[in-house]
């Protein structure tokens, strides 16, 4: 009488090592065939004493069932392998078939990205009309009629039926500042992306219709130091310059709606990042015209007259406003050479994004 435990171990070992269906059949015969080793055990049961017969019988039958299941399991496995082996091998070097997918305009993508950076800083995205009154676009922003400051914006005027109020296509997104401040209570933390219009001849870097993003942060005690932080953070995120820090430099400027006013320069994102600190060094690249710096925005502290025109008391509030041309930033980021491409209907351009 062989030891059933030892038999089980041996049989399972053989089954596990089997490599083909044919070998498996032989092993099955060896164990479960008419003269198989387990069969012999079962046949020998009758010779056992009464008290052992039942116990060993149960054990041996359980083992028989276990082995039959195992043989079946492996057989299915071998058959499946054989079936798959007959299937055709795919040529993985053939080209993939593309699913039809559309493309968002590069400007849409960029605006989403810009908005989300500012949203992460707590700025809400706000909109306003493209057709504006002369008052919102100029007077309210401290740009009086017949003042040379108005010449800074070449304006498209609209033919109107009533002569009381002159209408125009907004030359900047700044009028939305006034509209928003009139309706809301400070503190303000908003950005205003939108289309603006300038009456100028178009070429590779000038458009009569383009986008601006205006920002406004107003509270008690908001300072130029805060502006430097916010704008620096934005440009670092937008140009994804994690390794090198972008240096922000403010240069004196003049805008009627801010005081103090400045232009925002950043260290060139394409070449020497520290060149702005020493303008005298003749390093740089063609993008920054060998200056090492890029002018990217106009900004300043909101002028008291603007607060006043928006119905706020300038004594109670303080803050900064800034604005930049969106296309110009996108052109820098994606290396787009001509601003007119943004109005192109050429699929070879539109499908790149």
């Amino acid at each position, binding site marked *: 009488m062989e030891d059933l435990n030892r038999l089980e171990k041996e049989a399972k070992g053989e089954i596990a090592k089997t490599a083909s269906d044919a070998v498996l059949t032989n092993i099955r015969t060896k164990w479960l065939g008419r003269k198989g080793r387990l069969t012999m055990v079962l046949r020998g049961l009758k010779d056992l004493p009464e008290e052992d017969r039942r116990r060993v019988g149960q054990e041996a039958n359980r083992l028989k069932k276990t082995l039959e299941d195992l043989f079946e399991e492996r057989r299915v496995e071998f058959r499946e392998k054989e079936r798959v082996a007959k299937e055709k091998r795919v040529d993985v070097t053939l080209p993939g078939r593309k699913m039809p997918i559309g493309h968002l305009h590069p400007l849409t993508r960029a605006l*989403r990205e810009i908005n989300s950076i500012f949203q992460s800083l707590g700025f809400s995205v706000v909109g306003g009309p493209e057709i504006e009154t002369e008052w919102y676009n100029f007077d309210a922003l401290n740009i009086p009629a017949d003042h040379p400051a108005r010449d800074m914006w070449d304006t498209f005027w*609209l033919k109107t039926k009533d002569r009381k109020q002159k209408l125009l296509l907004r030359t900047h997104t700044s009028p939305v500042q006034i509209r928003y401040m009139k309706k809301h209570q400070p503190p303000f933390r908003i950005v205003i992306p939108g289309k603006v219009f300038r009456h100028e001849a178009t070429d590779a870097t000038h458009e009569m219709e383009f986008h601006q993003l205006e920002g406004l*942060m107003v509270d008690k005690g908001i*300072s*130029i130091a805060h502006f430097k932080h916010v704008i620096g953070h934005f440009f670092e995120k937008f140009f994804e310059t994690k390794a090198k820090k972008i240096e922000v430099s*403010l240069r*004196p400027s*003049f805008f009627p709606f801010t005081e103090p006013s400045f232009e925002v320069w950043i260290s060139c994102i394409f070449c020497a990042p520290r060149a702005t600190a020493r303008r005298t060094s003749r390093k740089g690249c063609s993008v920054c015209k060998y200056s090492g710096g890029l002018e990217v925005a106009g900004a300043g502290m909101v002028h008291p007259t603007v607060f006043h025109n928006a119905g706020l008391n300038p004594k109670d509030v303080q803050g900064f406003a800034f604005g930049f041309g969106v296309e110009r930033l996108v052109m820098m980021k994606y290396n787009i050479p001509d601003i007119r491409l943004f109005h192109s209907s050429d699929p070879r351009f539109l499908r790149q994004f």
Partner: protein
Amino acid sequence: MKFSYNWLKEYIPKLPEPKQVADLVTRHAFEVSEIKKQKGDVIFDIDILPNRMPDASSHRGLAQEIAAIMKLNLSAKGGSASGGKSQKSKFNLKKKKLKKNDLEISILDKDTVLRYHGALIKSIKIKPSPKWMQERLGALGIKSINNVVDITNYVMVEYGHPLHAFDYEKIHGRTLTIRKAKADEALETLDGVSHSLSDDILVISDKDRIIDLAGIMGGKNSEMDPKTKTVFLQVATFEPTFVHRASRILKKRTEASLRYSAGIDPNLAGLALERALLLLGELADGTVTGFIDIYPKPVYARHIRFRPEKANQVLGTRIPEKEMTSILQRLSFDVSRKKNAPKELIVKVPSLRRDLELEEDLIEEVGRIYGYDQIEAKRPVGELAPAAIDRHLFFKEKIRDLFRASGFDEVRNYAFIGEKHIADLGPQDRSALIEVENPQSREFSHLRPILLPSLAYAVSEALKFSKDIRYFEVGRVYQWLPVTYRDTPDLERLNLAFAITHAKNQEGSQAFFELKGALDTIFESLGLHDVWYDDVPASPETLTQGVGRFLHPYQFSEIKLGEKKLGIFGMLHPALKKKFNIKDDLSVGEVFLDELIGETEKEKEYRPISKYPAVTRDLAILVPRDVRVVKVLDIIENTGGSLLTDVDLFDMYEGDEIVDGKKNFAFHLIFQSTDRTLKDEEVERVMQNIIKALEENIEWEVRK
């Protein structure tokens, strides 16, 4: 504006080398856009900011600014640069008053002239100016004419106040009148250009005619010539708005008009005249016979309150008061402490600095001279309210994503349209068009009232490069309202337009149903499950805000939710296909996004998903060829009741195998209950009702 390094160095003997000057000026005051070496000198091109023109558009003014930035001293000789060796004018300005017989000045509108200053000089010898003066003017790009004209230009770039010399003999009637021009008047200026004038333009006339465009340029008729003996030298401070307006209307900008437009300190007129007379005495032998000075409202220095604490709060700095005071003093302002207010200063700014009125203006002065680069960035602190997400914006972007996911590319066309598209618009649209007063060109003369024309044109262009164009655009459209608008946002709406092309070899209506299918998918993704397509019997011309005109008269449908029109789509009108030279099939449409987004907000409501299995039954029916699917669907849906949750047309056949001019529709009917598992008998009962209802139409035959 051009500046000479050598000239500036005469004011500031310790001036550093040009590159360093340029760098510091750029960082603290104005952008130096060019540094050019030129005949032993270096010429800077500096963008003087418009608000600083009054004080910095001259060598004397800029030198003052540079000295303040660099903590350098101005030369004691001050304004007496080259030439003018004698330090004091030999004329006493107050003594000799101009006699009325010699010249009478009248100013018709008092508010047009802040100060009228001048002198009559006789025994002038007209000759070329000396070499040093010619060179200095030449370096700045100013042509040398003769000694008298050169002196007026020289003093302008030295002091910043323009001067004009009239040939006295050419002033008819010995009178000068400063007045507005009349509509029919004209003048030929010194450069030989003739201008027709209007009552917006300030001029100077003599007894008979206009002889000068005030503040812009003199007239040819009073120009000096080599024989000129007597000169009236005018140093007039005009009110800036009049010169600016005239210069804009006449499209004429001169060195003088630039300075006048920005505004000039009338006190500068005295200094400029004195300086010019000094040079005239030296270089043209003139003798002054009389002066005139009409200066009714003298301008004085301003006193502005300044709180160093507030300045630090705005700048985000901790600059000591002492340093601020030093900066202000370097800019030649007087600083004193306010009585009974230890934290406040009173700053006296000279009249030359017309840009300084408020405390904020002084904060800018301190900030820029201190240096913005020295301000360290600080993270803003305070209550951090989460950014509000605008629903309108959210859905606009969602719609863009859905079109993109359905294989559409996004285009952005101009907001302008021109004659090419206007002709196609309906009469109503045309009368409501908003026109640009000063368009860029005829192609961009009006604002678009709908998106479709520009989109169809864009597609026709795109077809030159690729087949199978699928384009969409989300953009604003503009139109006058039939009623008076409240505010300008009323004139704008947000629309969505889309287009699909299909090569002609396929079945004609493919593009139509592809677009309809795409729209279905998109509306469902937006949660708008009840959008339907209305079959409008009338011609599309008058329909749906003028978009219908652009569609094929028999191949279009209005997109509706309930009775609300969301938009319209169909095949492009054959006439437009021809016009845009489009050979392929093209389906297009336009949706009014403001309406759609309004509905999206209402529709967002959770619909429970049934836990019980659905039962599907198929139904095939033979109907005459002219019966449309919607008619069959209506009967099925109306009879099906609440258990019928969906009906899908999965096959339509009208081939040869079907007799009698009929066609076959096959539908999947899906039954489901939210509260129980449906029994076969229940479903069967509904199916029998449906079949019965369908077969009430005599020619209809449900296939069993």
